[in-house]
């Protein structure tokens, strides 16, 4: 079985709001406010793939893909450090807008080139734009089953059983093979830490590069696929809340004052 895991590089979501700044010209986060990291849900997707490889008796090969500039190879090295079997960087020409439609078309072309592929996993959304679209677009591009918000995948007969997050709990979805799934976090797919030795090996690994122009023939058409949005501006929302610290000699006194304050504000 061959599993492709699609990765994306994002600005570190853990940087505190006090250090976050925007670049009004680029209409994006200012460069240098934080390091670039592998999207957290992609780490969950990678973990789902790694666990499948460990659990199944059949041979499982995991290939990590990303679309981006050469510096995006860092997220592929992260995948190699937790022992993905291979990684490929899809290089897009500089200066073009990599919207979800374009990324999905490039990923679909790469998946076709890697055939036979049984399962494609993506994170449920990227931690910068929170679009949650590329996985669904990919299912449409490939004409495969597509299931979103999946936390666990089991092989069942010729297909898959997927545990999918719902608004009320979970749903079990039966999907045909091949399939695309977008992965959400739960307690079973917490990303593992790489071993030092594997990190060193990954840092030295040769990462093959596939040029977008080789993957998709008609370049003119590629950059006009779908309906990208125009970013008019970006702003940092202001939070007008002012925190009143409840003081007191003892914890009991603080608790009593908090309840009084909530009553005074007509919250309770």
């Amino acid at each position, binding site marked *: 079985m061959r599993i492709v895991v699609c990765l994306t590089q994002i600005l570190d979501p853990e940087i505190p709001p006090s250090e976050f700044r925007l670049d009004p010209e680029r209409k994006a986060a200012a460069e240098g406010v934080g390091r670039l990291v592998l999207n957290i849900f992609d780490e969950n997707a990678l973990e789902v793939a790694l666990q499948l490889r460990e659990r199944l008796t059949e041979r499982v090969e995991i290939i990590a893909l990303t679309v981006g500039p050469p510096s995006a190879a860092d997220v592929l090295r992260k995948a190699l450090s937790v022992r993905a079997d291979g990684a490929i960087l899809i290089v897009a020409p500089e200066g073009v807008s990599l919207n979800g439609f374009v990324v999905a078309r490039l990923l679909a072309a790469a998946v076709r080139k890697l055939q036979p592929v049984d399962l494609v996993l993506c994170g449920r959304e990227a931690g910068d734009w929170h679009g949650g679209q590329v996985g669904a677009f990919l299912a449409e591009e490939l004409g495969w089953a597509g299931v979103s918000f999946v936390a666990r995948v089991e092989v069942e007969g010729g297909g898959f059983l997927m545990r999918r997050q719902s608004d009320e709990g979970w749903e079990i979805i039966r999907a045909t093979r091949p399939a695309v799934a977008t992965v959400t976090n739960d307690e079973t797919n917490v990303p593992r830490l790489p071993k030092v030795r594997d990190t060193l090996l990954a840092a030295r690994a040769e990462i093959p590069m596939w040029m977008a122009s080789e993957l998709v023939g008609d370049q003119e058409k590629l950059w006009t696929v779908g309906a990208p949005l125009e970013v*008019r501006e970006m702003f940092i*929302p202001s939070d007008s809340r002012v925190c009143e610290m409840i003081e007191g000699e003892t914890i009991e006194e603080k608790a009593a004052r908090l309840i009084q304050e909530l009553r005074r504000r007509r919250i309770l």
Partner: protein
Amino acid sequence: MRTVLVILPASEVRRNEREAIGAAQAVARELGGSVCVAFIGPTSEIRGLHEEDSRAPEAEIERLLVVAHPHLEPYAPELYVSASEQLLSAVRPDVILFPGGTIALEIAPRLAHRIGAAIVTDVVGLRSEGVPSGSCEEKALVLIKPVYGGKAHAVLVAPRPPVIVCVRPRAFDPFDGRLLRSHVRSVEVVLDPSAARAHLVERIREASTMEVPLEEARVIVSGGRGMGGPEGFRWLQELARRLGGTVGASRAACDAGWVPASWQIGQTGKKVAPDLYIAVGISGASQHVVGISKAKCIVAINTDPKAPIFKIADLGIVGEYQKVVPALIAEAERLYEEHPA
């Protein structure tokens, strides 16, 4: 006149559905247009519609449609996308709205891809702006969504209609009017069951241990990494019970396996809008804060006075939750003895 279509993959009118209709009314007001509401599901029996009422005879929603087909049970994403696509050719909308929720977020992007439409998910605000069109001026829809885990908001314009909008739960005022059963018209669709490549086989309900769902709760007591383990959540439940509320958690507590993932509140969990949100042992990462920004009052309890949660809270107590929460339980008990609800 623009047509604003609300697609509700549901057989019931609940809060998410009402919020999507409320957002559609806002779009129609901004752009000038009419609202069409369409339910998609296995049955034309929609729960939560109103019977005819002589006191309110006029329809507040211009068109009320239902796309009912037996092949839509059990749930299969491809068939819902196909039904939505056929609905679009009957309605020809300029703007398509979906409610929050995992089903809508699964099918909306696939519909966008199929029809080549722009899509914006997690929309929290909208307005219109004039754009020159030949000799006159047209109105374009401007959409606002949080980005970078809520640290910034992006203001977006779709290049051409139609545009698909997925509404973030608890961001728009719900439609508070009546949807009259007698106004429902049905739309016929043709579905090929062999097109379904995935379908639902089982539902596992994992609601909170409380009766009130998180999204509807007036009071939420929520725990994070600072809880240190699953045990302390029993105190949070006790406090929530005494305040008539329910329990939630941060992503860290869910990932640790202390509480079910369905309790998660934040950017990728539930979005909540209680009157009172008590954050216990939650540091206040922006991906969590973005899910509680609509709370009327946020109380933070944390041992670290520098925790970012105090920056967005209304009231704060610095202290160990193991001491603060039992003291609050005792106070809450006293309160309800003095002022029974």
